[in-house]
């Protein structure tokens, strides 16, 4: 079973994303900010991380930087999933090592399509 870590400070978004991913047979864990997410990845590497940008305590960008510098092997695919929809943000995320980018609001097909592009399903 593939696994996904959902990192988002919104409980509602986590719930929606969890539902979508579970129907695609993913095992899902959740984190409410980047710091919590770092604790998770220190324990086990998920196949995919769905990452929000703006979160208290530690932002998605700060998490991504920290995560990429850990050089975890194997390394999770990181999909930013955020309302920051400007080209500047998108470019910055890619430069920092994001594998994909989902502009919120998203639906099942968007998530499915991005996972397919990354070869995760």
């Amino acid at each position, binding site marked *: 079973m593939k696994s996904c870590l959902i990192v988002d400070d919104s409980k509602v978004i986590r719930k929606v994303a969890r539902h979508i991913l579970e129907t695609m047979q993913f095992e899902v864990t959740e984190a409410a900010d980047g710091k919590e997410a770092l604790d998770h990845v220190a324990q086990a590497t998920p196949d995919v991380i769905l990452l929000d940008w703006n979160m208290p305590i530690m932002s998605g960008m700060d998490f991504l930087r920290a995560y990429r510098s850990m050089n975890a092997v194997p390394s999770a695919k990181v999909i930013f999933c955020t309302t920051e929809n*400007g*080209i500047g943000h998108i470019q910055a995320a*890619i430069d920092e090592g*994001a594998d994909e980018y989902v502009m919120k609001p998203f639906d099942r097909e968007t998530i499915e*399509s991005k996972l*397919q592009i990354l070869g995760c399903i």
Partner: protein
Amino acid sequence: MSIGEAKAYRTLSAALERHTGQTVPTNRHWRIDMALKPLMRRNSVPDLQTLAALIEMDTDPKLTRACVEAMVNNETSFFRDQPNFALLAGPVLDHIRELRSDTKRLRIWSAACSTGQEAYSIAITILENAEKWRGWTIQILGTDVSATALAQAREGRYSQFEIQRGLSVTHMIRHFEQQGEEWVAKDALRKMVTFTEHNMLTPVRHFGRFDVILCRNVLMYLNDDKRTHVLEAIAPSMEEGGLLMLGAAETVIGQTQKFRASRAFRGFYELTPGRQGA
């Protein structure tokens, strides 16, 4: 459902069939209702019966057309059916490139292209492999019966939802420009594709011959006779050695003798030798 309503559905689905060949099974008549609501609101038409009466009188061809276009399913996405598309983008195009290495001419037809994502996906594939195609003359044609869909295709303008369907973020930012909430194909991409109106039930106009013809997710809405009709109308436009690509759930088997399954490329079809005919 009242007799009047039932008659209205019949009139509307008959109009759809007359213009596109598509039939709507009775148990999916509710879709007509849903599809036409916005158009009725825009034209201050109070109910389906009134709309059907207007269509029957056919005094306003524009309304009939808008009505038909609203009933047609335009669903599409970039690189739709990724594994099949990967076969096209990789091995199939490589094969055609070898086959045409003397003329260095590549012609692709996305028939029933809807809002253009299919045609642009091919164009993106070529642009991403520009080195391979240097010195080639490449033409990509997109056709559809829906003028509304074609207008969007020509502009290459997509909503946030549309642009994220099937397109990777790298391809998105490389080939599209953000304009507010929308994403618009950059000139280099747009210039690669020509769009023009064509109804596949009518004889193919002088589009010339193609190395690859995509006719995806449209046969599935037609009855057997019409499928045969469309496939046989396409055959004369196929270049020798060319390949036909259908939707993942579609086949030519049992529909026509003019094409047969390709041995080399699963899900693709080639002309049956000696059967092309006009």
